[in-house]
């Protein structure tokens, strides 16, 4: 056992400095397409390439709806006229008018529900336990039961079979509670919903407080989403407002 201890100590500190300083390592985020101004037909052509309807062209303005982006990269790859691309990961937006309130000031317990996720979003949520991200240092803990949970973190488009389970989890949580929807599927149904066995995302079932776009959102984006949910980080500037 001592060799494990020594190995652990020798590894040193690997944890990211985020949210104090931005994380700059390569490969921590896939980025997102960026709004931009093009000629009218170029914008329309770019928008038409998007398979999930995340891009909309209007008079040469290309608008990105991150909630629908599935990272197919068709707007930037195998094309002569690629759309703009932005890196970063602070994508989470607050929806609705709910304020977190004083109950969310100290340590926070999460319950994670997989509502039909493909594995990627859930995997990125799990990475938050990784020493690189270590959400414990920010006071976030995963709890085994919704009875102790402050935040419900949902991934996946909400399949028909998971609808009851998700609703029951939400009902079992004490108030005040916040719902964080993580990933494109949870926001818009992604490539799966709506269909005969899938909803159009969590908002079809529960009131969502924070949305984290991305397919999957990288761990730092989810961390940002959690900080937004408890009012400790500013949400990404709402696209609706700037438009």
């Amino acid at each position, binding site marked *: 056992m001592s060799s494990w201890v020594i190995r652990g100590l020798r590894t040193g500190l690997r944890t990211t400095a985020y949210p104090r300083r931005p994380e700059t390592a390569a490969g921590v985020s*896939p980025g997102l397409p960026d709004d931009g101004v093009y000629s009218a037909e170029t914008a329309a052509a770019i928008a038409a390439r998007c398979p999930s309807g995340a891009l909309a062209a209007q008079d040469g303005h290309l608008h990105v709806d991150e909630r629908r982006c599935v990272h197919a990269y068709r707007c930037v*790859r195998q094309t002569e006229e690629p759309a703009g691309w932005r890196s970063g990961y602070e994508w989470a937006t607050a929806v609705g008018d709910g304020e977190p309130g004083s109950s969310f000031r100290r340590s926070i317990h999460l319950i994670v529900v997989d509502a039909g996720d493909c*594995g990627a979003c859930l*995997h990125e949520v799990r990475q938050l336990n*990784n020493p690189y991200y270590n959400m414990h240092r920010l006071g976030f803990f995963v709890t085994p039961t919704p009875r102790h949970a402050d935040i419900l973190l949902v991934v996946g488009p909400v399949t028909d079979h*998971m609808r009851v389970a998700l609703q029951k989890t939400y009902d079992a949580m004490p108030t005040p509670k916040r719902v964080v929807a993580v990933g494109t599927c949870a926001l818009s149904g992604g490539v799966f919903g709506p*269909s005969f066995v899938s909803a159009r995302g969590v908002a079809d079932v529960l009131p969502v407080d924070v949305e984290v776009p991305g397919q999957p959102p990288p761990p730092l984006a989810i961390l940002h989403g959690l900080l937004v949910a408890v009012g400790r980080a500013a949400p990404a500037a709402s696209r609706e407002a700037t438009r």
Partner: protein
Amino acid sequence: MTPTDLARDLASRWPREVHERVDARRPLVEVTCPPARLVDVCRYLFVDRAFSFAGLVVEEAGDTFELRYLFHGSRGEPWAHVVVIVPANDPRVPTIVQPVHAADWHEREAEDLFGVIFDGHPRLGDFVLHDDAWQEGVAPMRHRFDARASVVERRPNTDWRPHRVVETPGAFVMPIGPVFAGQAESAHFDLETVGEDVIRALPRLFYKYRGIEKIAEGQPVDRVLLLAERFAATTAFAHGWAYSRAIEQIAGAVVPARAEALRVFIAELERFRHHVGAIHAICESTALVVAASQTAMLEEDLLRVSGALTGHRYLFGLVVPGGLTIDIADDACRAALARCEVVLRALNDVERLLQFSSSFLDRLEEVGIIAEADAREAGLVGPMARASGIARDLRKVLPYAGYDRMTFVVPTEREGDGYARLRVLFAEARQSVALMAQLATLPSGPHAVHVSPRAGAAVGVVEAPRGATFHWVRLEADGRVSRYRVVSPSFVNWLGFHLAVERFAFQDFPIILSTLDLSVAETDR
């Protein structure tokens, strides 16, 4: 053995009853037989000729169902498709689970989604569509069923009870899931117990059923590619590749050498990353904290390598029919390889330390044992089968993308317990990095060719990180998909779960589950 030989052999055994069609290019023998002969033909292929069962494809054609049982031989042997045609208004065929246990879940799924009755199957119903949420008789895979409309009329069976076999007084069912205590995928387990130890565990899956085979129907090829990549994203590249291979086969496209080499490089990167993740899950389930943290960091390192190399941490948007969406520079590949080798060195250190952690080994050895004979009958694939002594790897058996020109071994173990599966994961991780190293100099040329879809059907085959995956695609003349069938390794390997989990201590359950490395998303589709 050539396809013609196999065709002749079958014709001599069942003269005038079965009809063979030979496709020497694939190579493939398509055997059409009457339902009465189905079991005999399948037994002959599976038991006597030791063919592997790849899956069952049901296709609705007019007022008939065409049931296609896919078998493939070892290296140098052809595929055999056993085809049975039954009327859609009375679809009954005999079950083949007696000789081919591997077909169990395929038949249950076909019964649930198409309404095909498999005479003699001991457990039909309540499979994909849960009986306590849906009425009997909903057959969503039928053409007349609308994939995009939600089913309003629901008459669930309110008397639903868990299937129980333990008949000891005082036995009860301990339900676990679908919402778990950790961050596990949604699935439900009924553990039958009288307290202390679990006598039997029964999984109830398909909580995450997204119906991708149904919603793919009528969609263009590039749209279905999104589904193929995203239904099980931890092994997205392998599934996207298998789908692309099916399309390329239909279109008769030849993928450029550079694209094939890059695909192999990325597929092995994905396998390496997946195996490190699986090792991490095992360490975590045994509560070995330092090892879990170390492997978690290695996994994140590899996710970052993937992200830096391809733009996406899970390799989305990379593979397309005909090649890759982007070219990757040689030195970028070499840089990625160098980082992978650093990770591998750290992984080897972890393995060495684990071999001397007796508390860790105690919890893995002789836990969740799958015997070789059972594994063979259940048709298990991937590392799980290889830990039970079945050295079947599609990269060797049905070589593709130049794997036959590369040097690597297929690691196998005999014990079939949790520790054997862990050793296989470590050995395969080393093999993957060795394979990447062999691609240090990539062939030059284009990274993609244009593929124009045409009518036809083919099965795309890839050895995904969790094992063999088969994507059956049928295209219409307009380039739209009319049938998409995914046989994923986890779907097959859940049968192994039944073999591994009987009579165990309750606290061993998460450990057994982690060593089996079963993906729910891959199974539920």
